[in-house]
């Protein structure tokens, strides 16, 4: 168990800057997820931590010691690959045993026939078998020990990959999109299992995914990466409620956050589509800003003056909730509201309705840079304005 330090890591492939300069301190025992869209550099960063890629600049430290000069096998890490990378010609038991054999048996002891001759080797082998069995039982795959990977389902293969990583008792667990090859239902189930595993082992986990739901549900902290930059590092709730950048706000959360365009007015408010929204961001009057409101914070009411109006384009019935897809006349992006189903019994496609939300739920972002602007409400927070 150890803390991992990433100091000013840079990496380019040819002319493409995959990692621009990453600084990140991962604490001992935490579950850190690197999340971002494809191509943002998260897998590359993981591989640099593992030692499978060399960085162009910067250094990696594990447990306080710089490990840049060490081979991957000497960094005391374990990694679960996206494709699981199970040795197809070995059984599950043999697969899990590989790290132990590599570490504990010398080369001669590993040879097929000769290796069996020494009694010391026999002792080591029994110990290895015991450890393999222990891990297999922990992961509930003990009944599969004699099968080969091709006979296993996706979820079972994934557990073997995890088992092979676990058996080494590493300092840090690296996981590279381990759930992306599984079907949706299994993925949800495995999220819980991995989270449980983290709790029971207490080891530092570094997890890479492009799925924001995985990042939100499993992590102690999330590191959002975009285009080679680290945008925000914070616990899930903070990333959700308090995003540092419009890209983070748009990436995290499903359905996507609603973005409206507006300009800062002199009255301590933001003018948006002809309506004044009671938030005052810390920036000069006249700045173009973007306002973000989460779908679940939007309510549908009657259209009227002082309210943002929109036309209902589509209704999606999710059961307890309804997703209402709306279009505002001067906004290019569609608006989505998530409301309890009873409230919308009368709603029909084509209706002109008003959007109801509280100023306290509005996130303000700079119109040009996308950075989050701190702001305060100029209207009482609890009051549902524009209602």
């Amino acid at each position: 168990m150890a803390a991992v330090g990433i100091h000013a890591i840079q990496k380019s492939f040819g002319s493409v800057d995959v990692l621009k300069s990453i600084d990140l301190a991962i604490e001992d025992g935490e579950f850190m997820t690197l999340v971002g869209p494809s191509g943002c550099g998260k897998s590359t960063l993981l591989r640099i931590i593992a030692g499978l890629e060399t960085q162009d600049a910067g250094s990696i430290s594990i447990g306080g010691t710089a490990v840049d000069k060490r081979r991957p096998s000497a960094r005391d890490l374990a990694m679960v690959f996206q494709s699981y990378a199970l040795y197809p010609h070995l059984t599950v038991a043999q697969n899990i045993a590989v790290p132990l054999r590599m570490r504990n048996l010398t080369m001669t002891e590993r040879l097929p026939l000769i290796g069996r001759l020494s009694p010391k080797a026999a002792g080591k082998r029994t110990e290895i078998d015991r450890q393999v069995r222990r891990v297999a039982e922990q992961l509930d795959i003990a009944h599969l020990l004699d099968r080969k990977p091709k006979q296993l389902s996706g979820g079972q293969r994934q557990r073997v990959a995890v088992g092979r990583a676990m058996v080494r008792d590493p300092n840090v667990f690296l996981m590279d999109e381990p759930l992306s090859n599984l079907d949706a239902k299994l993925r949800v189930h495995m999220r819980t299992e991995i989270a449980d595993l983290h709790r029971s082992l207490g080891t530092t986990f570094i997890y890479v995914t492009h799925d924001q739901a995985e990042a939100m549900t499993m992590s102690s902290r999330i590191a959002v990466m975009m285009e080679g930059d680290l945008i925000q590092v914070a616990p899930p709730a903070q990333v959700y409620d308090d995003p540092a950048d419009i890209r983070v706000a748009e990436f995290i959360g499903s359905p996507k956050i609603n973005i409206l365009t507006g300009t800062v007015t002199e009255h301590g408010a933001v003018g948006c589509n002809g309506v004044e929204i009671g938030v005052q961001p810390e920036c000069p009057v006249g700045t173009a800003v973007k306002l973000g409101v989460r779908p679940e914070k939007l309510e549908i009411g009657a259209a009227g003056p002082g309210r943002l109006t929109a036309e209902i384009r589509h209704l999606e019935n999710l059961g307890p909730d309804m997703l209402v897809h709306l279009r505002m006349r001067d906004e290019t992006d569609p608006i989505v509201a998530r409301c309890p189903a009873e409230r919308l019994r009368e709603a029909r496609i084509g209706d002109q309705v008003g959007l109801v939300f509280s100023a306290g739920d509005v996130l303000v972002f700079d119109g040009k840079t996308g950075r989050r602007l701190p702001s305060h409400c100029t209207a009482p927070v609890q009051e549902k304005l524009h209602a």
Partner: protein
Amino acid sequence: MPSTDTMAFGGPSPAVFVHAKRRSLAAHLTAYALSAPALFLMALLLIGPVLVVLMMSFTDYSLGNASFEWVGLANYAEMLEDDVFVKAIGNTLLYVGIVVPASVFLGLGAAMLIESLTFGRAFWRAVYFLPVMATLMAMAIVWEFMLNARFGMISQLLALLGLPAKNWLQETSTALPMLMVIGIWQALGFNMVLFMAGLTSIPRDLYEALELDGGSSSWSRFWTVTWPLLSPVTLFVVVITAIRSFQVFDPVHVLTKGGPNNASMVLIYQLYQEGFDFFRSAYAAGLTVVFLIFIFAITWVKSRVMEKNVHY
């Protein structure tokens, strides 16, 4: 309008039934027509001849004779007494036994070396593959010149080192070995290309996983990942090389004619001699049957091994 829905209410109507049957007959006829030429030729040029060869081996037919007699196993009995045949089988097996392992391992070695290079891959691949493309007959003649005791490159080189030159292809002890060298020389490149395809199909992340598991030496990588994952290719290469080596003929006919003193006599060469020099067709047919048995045996071994060992 008759419905095409055969499953509606109670089953197909009679009209539909007849229509379906007629269509399927037409489809059948088309299929037969499309494959008829191939089938006919397969029977005439492949299956038929094999059966003829089998039957002929039990006769005393010679090409040009008006008739023949059935002689049972006489040809086979003669084979067992035939020194030339015994030598031919022995030499052929020896040839296969040396050329196959040598060309397979050298091919694998070349493939692994070339695959791991950072640049120059295509160049070396072309170089090593060249012998495969060059007409064996022509290159055999070139080899003969190279081995020429007076003017060939090899004897010149030996002269430089102060060693005596030999008439490699004309001496009993070196004729067959020289043919083996030529065989290895040619087969190496072919095997190399097949191994290279096999090597590139090994997923890279297996090596990375092994690296993280602690197997960082070249030996671990070869033994734990490369060799096991290459096993289908290796099997294929071994079988193909074995079958091709078994059929060695061209260099023998041009360079040594099976000599000196049958030192380089091989099975196909004897088959050629008996069948097309001496026109003892029935005996040659018997030799062909023996040849076929060996080939089928090799193929049978391959499928047995494959059943046992294919992982994926």
